[in-house]
């Protein structure tokens, strides 16, 4: 009996981090903060990098085991500058799921950034995401290319006409010295029912009118797809879900973009 009690005490003390107040708490004593900003700092601006190579994946919800294999597969590829997780990091939008996935992604040699998906916006997911990863709309520049990551989960806002945020996008896509190209990254693709139909035209036109806009990268549908919603020639590419054990390696050389499907 004494041994049993001792065991219980040890288990309790060893797992002090396990005292949870609610699955819906937006942070706890040990949860991570500003993961995107920290990783982007590590990435740097890639001023000397003339070959921008990165991995696009998404929909890691409920696929922790696959994420472990994903990390191994990505680490085996040489020259990956960074990894983008294009939304639906979680299934239920709770803190623990975000912590579990980031624990696995820490194994990546390259820094990663997360973009919010519709599942991540359920419950208190928005607040939790903001606390742990950062802003829902943000951008970064690497190797002379500006990556514009944004929230396109219109249904979660009941199609209020403000998501995706077109004025914000227009401002981010303004030409600026030192930026040769632009890439848009968001979770819900423009051809989905979950994208605000009132905004499709404005959205695609905004991208088409941006000089040097290379591609729109998305996830959400769980299956690879390449489509052209207008005649601008801009490719809209959807990556497979983590569960399908497939990701995309995207390469930008001389402001030309190419995609390779990789299976693991």
């Amino acid at each position, binding site marked *: 009996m004494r041994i049993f009690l001792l065991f219980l005490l040890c288990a309790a003390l060893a797992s002090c981090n396990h005292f949870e107040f*609610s699955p819906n708490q937006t942070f706890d004593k040990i949860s991570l903060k500003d993961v995107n900003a920290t990783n982007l700092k590590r990435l740097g601006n890639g001023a000397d990098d003339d070959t921008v190579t990165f991995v696009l994946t998404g929909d890691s919800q409920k696929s922790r085991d696959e994420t472990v294999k994903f990390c191994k597969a990505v680490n085996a590829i040489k020259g990956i500058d960074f990894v983008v997780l294009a939304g639906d990091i979680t299934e239920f939008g709770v803190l623990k799921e975000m912590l579990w996935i980031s624990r696995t992604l820490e194994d990546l040699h390259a820094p990663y950034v997360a973009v919010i998906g519709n599942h991540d916006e359920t419950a208190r997911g928005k607040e939790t995401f903001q606390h742990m990863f950062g802003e829902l709309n943000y951008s970064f520049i690497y190797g002379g290319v500006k990556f514009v990551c944004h929230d396109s989960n219109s249904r979660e806002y009941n199609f209020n006409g403000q998501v995706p945020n077109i004025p914000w996008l227009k401002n981010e896509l303004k030409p600026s010295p030192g930026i040769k190209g632009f890439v848009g990254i968001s979770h819900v693709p423009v051809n989905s029912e979950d994208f605000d139909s009132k905004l499709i035209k404005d959205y695609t036109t905004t991208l088409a009118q941006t000089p040097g806009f290379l591609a729109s990268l998305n996830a959400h549908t769980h299956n690879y797809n390449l489509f052209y919603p207008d005649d601008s020639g801009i490719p809209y590419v959807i990556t497979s879900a983590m569960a399908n054990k497939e990701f995309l390696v995207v390469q930008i050389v001389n402001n030309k973009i190419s995609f390779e499907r990789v299976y693991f």
Partner: protein
Amino acid sequence: MREYIFKFRFVFLLLVASSAKVSAQSFKFLIPDQAIVQYAGSIGYFSGGVGYELFGNKKGNLDLLYGFVPGSKGGVLNIATAKFGYKPWAIKLKEWGKIYPFNPAIFATYTFHKELSFKFPSGQYAHDYYYWSEALRPHLAFSSEIELDAKKLLKNTGIRAIGLYIEANTNDFYLINYLQNTSALTVTDIFQLGIGMRVKF
């Protein structure tokens, strides 16, 4: 008309009450057997409430608790909990107490917060778009409790015993994640702890 309905209800209640032989005795079951305070355990930073001992053998327990998570701890959340527990085994410790080594329980929490809905709005989402409730959460728990006999220690206080417990719980979200990822997640990932005290009258 409204008044008439009210009167009717009142008469109806009286009838029900009198048929149940109105006396203090018959409502005695409403008086709780225990007062409970708990730290963590997924039902609040701190929570408090009452407990009822169930069944003839008193091995069952129904706890009704209210918990609070302040903004500084990842809230603000208000949480109502109804917990049904069962103590299948009791180990006597001389004359000063008992140990209930392994007590399974199920509980439901309802979290009050503007971002948490009982049901996803049907106008916004097709049926089955999301299959769960954000506010209502089913949990599965196991606890160990040590019960100290208070009759000798705390004389004339009306306190029968004091129970100290530690509880591990999980919920549907965590179980679904675990069952689909048994190598990347462990049982200790999905079980969360709480400690509490029951004052038994």
